[in-house]
């Protein structure tokens, strides 16, 4: 019987998603980067999309990005009359990849495409995640 070849991600080590979340739990926003191709990857994967390079290493994100697309989810106001509307944006990270997040610290309808933003690790829906503030 021939020996089966295992990929570098095989074994008992946690996968890229778990590693990313463990970094977030320590307050760190980390990205993967291919050592040979130099490209950054988000969301975390076992290989670079399209090319399949598996030499991915973790590097700290600059945290800087630009609003690529934005919307306001409209809702009924809160019981106290305050607005319950919230922002959802797609952020183009300076490193290249895009991610869904939201821009805080500014009214949701004042978030505009092209706005420079800076990442912050915050609790989102009960777990650490990356949100953005105007830079």
């Amino acid at each position, binding site marked *: 019987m021939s020996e089966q070849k295992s990929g570098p991600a095989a074994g008992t080590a946690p996968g890229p998603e778990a590693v990313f979340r463990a970094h977030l739990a320590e307050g760190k926003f980390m990205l993967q980067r291919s050592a040979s191709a130099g490209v950054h990857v988000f969301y975390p994967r076992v290989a670079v999309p399209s090319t399949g390079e598996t030499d991915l290493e973790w590097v700290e994100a600059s945290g800087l990005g630009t609003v690529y*697309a934005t919307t306001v*989810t409209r809702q009924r106001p809160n019981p106290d009359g305050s607005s319950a509307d919230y922002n959802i944006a*797609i952020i183009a990270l300076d490193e290249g990849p895009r991610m869904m997040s939201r821009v805080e610290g500014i009214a949701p309808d004042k978030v505009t495409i092209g706005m420079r933003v800076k990442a912050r690790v915050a609790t989102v829906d009960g777990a650490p995640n990356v949100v953005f503030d105007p830079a």
Partner: protein
Amino acid sequence: MAHSLRGKAAIVGIGTAGTGEAPGRSAIELLAEASIAAVADAGLTVAEVDGIFTATSVHAFPTLSVGEYLGIKPKYFDGTNVGGSSFEAHLLHASLALDAGLCDVALICYGSNQRTAGGKLVSMSEPQVWEAPFKPRHPITAYALAASRHMHEFGTTREMLAEVAVAARAWANLNPNAFARGPLSREDVLKSRMVSDPLSVLDCCLVTDGGAACIMTRADRARHLKHKPAYFLGGAGAQWHRTISSMPDLAITAASESGPRAFAHAGLSPSDVHLAMLYDAFTINTILFLEDLGFCPKGEGGRFVMDGAIAPGGRLAVNTNGGGLSCVHPGMYGMFLIVEAVQQLRGRAGERQLERCDVALVHGNGGTLSSQVTALLGNEAAL
């Protein structure tokens, strides 16, 4: 050169059931009623159906459920589910299976009781882990993000989006089976409740019930059946992403790949098309697909639709049934695009019948602009 599949198979029967509101009926009942209607329309029997092509929002194994319910033991089955465009993909897959002799009578079918079952857009889709914490209300969040990008890059306005809804309603007003009828102005759309900027409630498709189905056979048999066949001239699908945050460019859909491949397959170009059935889940869709399928230059879709250009009497007939915006949209709408195209190709579309309709394009969209499938259908004159 056109693909060898061109004209080899045809749609010979169509059926719908419970479009609009169908209280007290389940999704599989609506699907089955539409299927029985399509079989009867073709002048065939259920016992002759030996190919099942289906996708729904409520069945994990849709071909199994449909086969069991209708009592069909198919020789060939395909439950490809890429969202609302699945049925355009099924046209291609059924044509392949028929041409290969793997089945002789193909049933493509869909049913949903989404409106009476809760009135909300329900989805069996799993949550997307990299988006869900930010509470997107897909699908509308995704389409709103795409619209925001289109407006930013090309100067598309809310008035242009509204014009799409107004044109759809004008067509619906000519269709007695459309669910939303009555006057609708651009101002009505602009003043309607904002849901996810820049899309207001009247930029969104209906939530209805409904079943729809069609029957395909090889062309040689199609010529001897009850109705003028609607030949499959070509088709192609493209998929570039699953989640909207992974879409390569929010202003360019994979229709820009599926469209040219489908046209090449059919040996046709956009100027040959008499009817464009474009999956209008939201007003931005129609604009994106007019551009990406080559009916106007990229970025010009908003300006293209102005002044009634896609309404009755306009320069291009688009969504003559009233579309997902004003006719019917029970979760997945793709099968209804096909039914309307066949009605028009047969010359049986009543008050909204086009003067000339020999070539119809049906373009399905699935997920959050994720899957795009284009098919070209034509009557005898298009062969």
